[in-house]
């Protein structure tokens, strides 16, 4: 990995029931993620993706590029906007610097052309 390198893009389209499975897997049953009617009542377009599931996609883009889960030492993200089921998400990642065996990677997750995770920085053990 060298500064300026793009890591392989990750594309994923969460299906209609993904948020239900993720709620069970993670223990986060906030109804904004699993109940369309409730979500609309609080002003959302419908049930929204869990932020931490979206962050897990950013994490997966890093571990797949870096050769496994051990490589991800740190991940820092800001959540922006809402992510919705049944629409493709694209995670892009660019290496900023490599020093002392650690690559600093800037990464972003977009859906419908809008950043849903931005200002994200990963630190990956490399080499």
């Amino acid at each position, binding site marked *: 990995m060298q500064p300026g390198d793009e890591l392989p893009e990750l594309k994923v389209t969460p299906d209609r029931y993904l948020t239900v499975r993720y709620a069970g897997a993670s223990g986060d049953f906030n109804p904004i993620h699993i109940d369309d009617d409730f979500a609309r009542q609080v002003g959302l377009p419908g049930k929204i993706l869990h932020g931490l599931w979206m962050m897990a996609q950013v994490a997966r883009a890093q571990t797949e590029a870096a050769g496994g889960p051990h490589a991800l030492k740190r991940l820092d993200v*800001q959540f922006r906007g809402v992510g919705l089921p049944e629409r493709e998400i694209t995670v892009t990642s660019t290496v900023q610097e490599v020093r002392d065996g650690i690559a600093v990677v800037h990464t972003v997750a977009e859906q419908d052309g809008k950043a849903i995770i931005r200002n994200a920085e990963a630190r990956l053990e490399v080499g």
Partner: protein
Amino acid sequence: MATQAETAAIGKTYPPLTYAVGREKIREYAVAVGETNPLHLDVDAAREAGHRDVVAPPMFCVVYCGPALGPALFDPELGIDFARLVHGGQRFEWGPLVVAGDEITTTVSVKEVSSRGPLGFFTFESRSVNQDGDTVCVGTWTNIVRGA
């Protein structure tokens, strides 16, 4: 404005909670987030790679931290209004990998309470330690409460 009671909570630490990491829970989580690396799904593959059992994906930390965060999020002293709660940001730093069979003890503390205009910020820190005393994950959880 953060109230005096809220600000006084900075540094408050909640009781540690221990989470026993199960093989099927790792698989369930790995499938839900789309992991395909056999280290997370296949015991034989994990053992061939030198691990005792299937390996938790790094973001599995949300599962073992979850029970320890509840008392902070629901702390009446902080009085977080869930109807207005937004997850603003998240940072994790990871140590050694977590595998099925580990027992992870997480301690949560209040790191920051502040306000900026109509927004209230509640930041928690989680520190998770395995049964050997290694710190496996430190999390910084930034929650934003939108004003009325």
